[in-house]
């Protein structure tokens, strides 16, 4: 799991690459939090185009970022979510809580 971040003007884009399972989430959660804390963004985007697999561990990751963004008064958006990950978000009924593109 790779975490690639790009931020400017309190807009943060994070590209996730690899398998977002419990193993991948464990490895990337700290990096994700660090990215959010240093950018303190008003708008954050998680780019899922590089996620080759996701299970419910990914949901926990996204919910954690979502919670932090709400505390910061900012918004969170997910983009380029592949079908397999989308299906997991849908099954978890989480698609309504988020903007998923």
């Amino acid at each position, binding site marked *: 799991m790779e975490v690639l971040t790009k931020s400017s003007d309190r807009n943060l884009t994070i590209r996730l690459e690899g398998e977002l*399972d*419990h193993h991948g989430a464990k490895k990337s959660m700290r990096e994700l939090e660090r990215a959010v804390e240093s950018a303190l963004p008003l708008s954050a985007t998680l780019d899922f185009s590089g996620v080759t697999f996701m299970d419910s561990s990914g*949901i926990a990751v996204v*919910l954690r970022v979502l919670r932090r963004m709400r505390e910061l008064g900012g918004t969170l958006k997910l983009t380029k979510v592949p079908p397999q990950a989308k*299906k997991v978000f849908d099954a*978890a009924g989480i698609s309504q809580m988020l903007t998923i593109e």
Partner: protein
Amino acid sequence: MKAENYMNLEFLSKSSNESFARVAVAGFAAQLDPTLDEIGDIKTAVSEAVTNAIVHAYPDRLGKISIKTKIYEGKVLEIVVRDWGRGIENIEQARQPLFTTGGEERSGMGFTIMESFMDKLTVRSTPERGTTVTMRKKISVRLSDRL
């Protein structure tokens, strides 16, 4: 009912084993000629069950995880994930969406996802003895099966 084919897998509860466990089961299921979507469902369900064994069954030690996979007539895939760990006190409660004892790292959606991606889910567990999760899924019949 007699199985047409089977595969048994056994490994340590290391998180680095999650990936190959689902790949192995998906590879075994490939002979049923599932759709990409079905392969995704199988991988996801296996990942949930295996992660539960790693995270919840053996929270503070490494233990053994077994996956027994069978194919039955009519393209039915059965996957049994077993551990010899902590067990579950209240299975009904554990199966509720959002219920988790895993803190912020877990979403409490594992069983919900297994249920929604597979046709049937059975959970048996004895505290301090371990847990057995049985899942079944019928793979869709495709035109090519009739050739």
